[in-house]
């Protein structure tokens, strides 16, 4: 063996955790896959097409930007693929294909690269893209399709009246007129429900709509319907230390608590009688809480800050869902909190080692 090898001199540390940017991005993509596949299964080939177009546009535009800007290629880090996947999962399976194209372009070109690419964007690119097309093509973006298991249950006349509605959009049009909980409203409107959900619901004494939404037997965006698979993906991410529990738990927890306290008031039930499970499993809450709010770049850097961030997301989600004009509130809430993130990071700091937390002086009682 050569006794005088050429040695490298570098700063410590000389060892590194087996984790880099691309592993993280691909891990998140993998964790999202089951939910995306469920969407494809429920809504058919069309959903796959939407996903493919979103991802393709995102990856291609990322490539072109780096080429035009003469930057070193960045496709290997997987962030563009992930953005495309998230954009696609946030689309209704029935949208015209130019919409996901626009959304991905907006996400990559405007939200991500005008601010300098990965790490410099102020908002989650996929969310930016989604919100951009949502407000541009609101009706197309809120026209949904029932999954195949529910379509089978409906006769031809009802398909039209109900096909455009997720439970949330359906409720939005109905809450004003009557005083009852959301599950009761869905039942009174003959919103379809699977037999499986009915039996499980009866056994557990919960609304069958909650059961259907939990397992993903509802209308909605391609990637948001199966709460169960999103939850599994999220748990995988937490266990593999890609994300921490702080944002998802405080986000979902805040939505649950606020709905429990105030959610029943509209139905005349008073405080502490709101329905908890239904708001959690409907809409894109789990997709947002586990996969979009936890985007590193646009969420606070300290765990304390992340708790505040999650609380803010949950708070705005509750407000917008119950008092806003649109049925879905998760993406707008996260965007709002993205804007607040630098401020949170500025004021919420960790306690330093050895730092004494100053005791506030007790005020003399009068």
């Amino acid at each position, binding site marked *: *063996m*050569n*006794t*005088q*090898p050429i*040695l*490298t*001199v*570098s*700063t*410590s*540390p*000389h*060892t*590194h*955790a087996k*984790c*880099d*940017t*691309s*592993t*993280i991005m691909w891990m998140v993509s993998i964790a999202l896959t089951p939910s995306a596949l469920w969407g494809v299964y429920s809504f058919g080939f069309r959903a796959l097409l939407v996903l493919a177009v979103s991802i393709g546009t995102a990856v291609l535009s990322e490539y072109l930007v780096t080429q035009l800007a003469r930057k070193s290629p*960045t496709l*290997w*880090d997987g962030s563009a693929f992930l953005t495309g996947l998230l954009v696609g999962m946030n689309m209704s399976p029935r949208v015209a294909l130019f919409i996901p194209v626009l959304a991905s372009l907006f996400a990559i070109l405007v939200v991500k690269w005008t601010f*300098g*690419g*990965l*790490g*410099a964007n102020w908002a989650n690119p996929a969310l930016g893209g989604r919100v951009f097309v949502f407000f541009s093509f609101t009706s197309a973006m809120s026209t949904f399709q029932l999954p195949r298991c529910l379509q089978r249950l409906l006769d031809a006349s009802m398909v039209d009246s109900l096909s455009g509605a997720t439970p949330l959009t359906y409720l939005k049009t109905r809450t004003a007129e009557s005083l009852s909980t959301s599950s009761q409203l869905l039942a009174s409107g003959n919103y379809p429900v699977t037999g499986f959900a009915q039996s499980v619901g009866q056994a557990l004494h919960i609304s069958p709509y909650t059961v259907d939404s939990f397992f993903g037997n509802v209308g909605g965006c391609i990637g948001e319907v199966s709460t169960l698979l999103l939850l599994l993906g999220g748990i995988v991410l937490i266990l593999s230390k890609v994300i*921490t529990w702080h944002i998802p738990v405080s986000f979902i927890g805040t939505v649950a608590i606020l709905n429990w306290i105030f959610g029943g008031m509209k139905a005349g039930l008073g405080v502490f009688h709101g329905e908890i499970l239904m708001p959690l499993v409907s809409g894109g809450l789990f997709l947002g809480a586990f996969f979009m709010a936890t985007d*590193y*770049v*646009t*969420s*606070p*850097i*300290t*765990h304390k800050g*992340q708790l505040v961030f999650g609380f803010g997301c949950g708070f705005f989600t509750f407000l917008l869902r119950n008092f806003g004009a649109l049925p879905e509130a998760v993406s707008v809430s996260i965007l709002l909190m993205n804007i607040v993130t630098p401020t949170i*990071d500025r004021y919420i*700091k*960790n*306690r*330093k*080692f*050895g*730092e*004494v937390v100053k005791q506030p002086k007790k005020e003399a009682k009068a």
Partner: protein
Amino acid sequence: MKAPTFSKGGVHPDDKKSLSREQKIEVLPLPSELLVSLSQHLGAPAKATKAKGDTVIRGEKIGVASGFISADVHSPVSGVIVDIKAVTLANSVSCDAYVIKPDAEQPAWPTEKTDWHMQSGEELLAEIKDYGIVGMGGATFPAQVKLSIPKDKDVNVLVVNGVECEPYLTADYRMMLEHGAEALEGAMIAAKIIRARRVIVGIELNKPDCIAYLKGIVSQNNLPIEIVGLKMKYPQGDEKQLLKATINREIPSGKLPLDVGAVVCNVGTCNAIYQAIVFHRPLVERIVSVTGECIAHPKNILAPIGTKTSDLIAFCGGFRSEPEKLISGGPMMGFAFFSQDTPICKGTSGILALPPQKPIRQTPCLNCGKCVAACPIGLEPARMYRYITAGDYALAMANDLMDCKECGCCSFSCPAHLPLVQAMKTGKKMGRKKK
């Protein structure tokens, strides 16, 4: 009961100790030449007292401390000083070093034991200074300075650091297993000097045999020492983290263990104190782990100070494969060096030969917060990195840059592979310059 550890931050690098942990300490055959540096400790270099051509005797003082924070240097061998020349040490410090050619015959060390119980703390402290003892965990802080307690401070605890949290290193582990009784007696000497009422030895749980062995010695001899098993986490061997883990005290920013009533002393140092006080042997040799994937036969070696790296590696059978880096110390905080002529010093706990690593691909900072979660001090390395790369050293200093001890947890966990520790080191240097 759950094993204690420190609460904030920390990482779990792959510990790799199995490469050398079963290797008993072996004595290195006398090398043909030694490079004994005059700057083997934190503080001012020692002043040379010998000249080129002089003969020296094993254990003779050849350099005297040149300030309050400084330490004496002794000759590890009897021989001739062939030259005095400038050398570059592993930590890139350049200083003068004696080139000593050892005689073929070496005088034996005295084996007569001295009973130290009759000596006063002041006398013991003077001897420790005289025998050039420094902290052997790596920081090489002169021991007599550490053990001199100012009159206004009340120190009641001596914490002995047997953590060895750096991956690969097994020198302290082997020392505790083979010379545990001596090290514990050394700890008792140190405790007498500082008048400590409690002595605690902290050892990580990856060394269960050490813990059991030392507990056995303690109960056999009825020593007033507590052996505490600590849950593994890097950097537990840092005195701030060790004090938090063992006695739940936090040293405030810019303060010393003294300020929270404790002194932290490495087990290696305790053993050196024992050798000095009981056998009157100055600190002229130490145990070095020569290990790493590229070393043919990793070993724990008792080698004279000043041994060249090439001699150690040759004793271990050379390289198994070509290394990319040679490191003095552990992989988290050790120094990469480029020449195999580099000598070992009083603080060299290991020489590692590490294989080439996958080329890293740096990305922009993702703001993921892994560095913040890993920092045992509670800093925000990512933010600091931004300040320093933008040249705003004053702002970095205002955000407690000086509290960073370069433990490497942030760089270790950074998925973007940002050179965070490098930035911290640059920032500190530039920040100090500006002041």
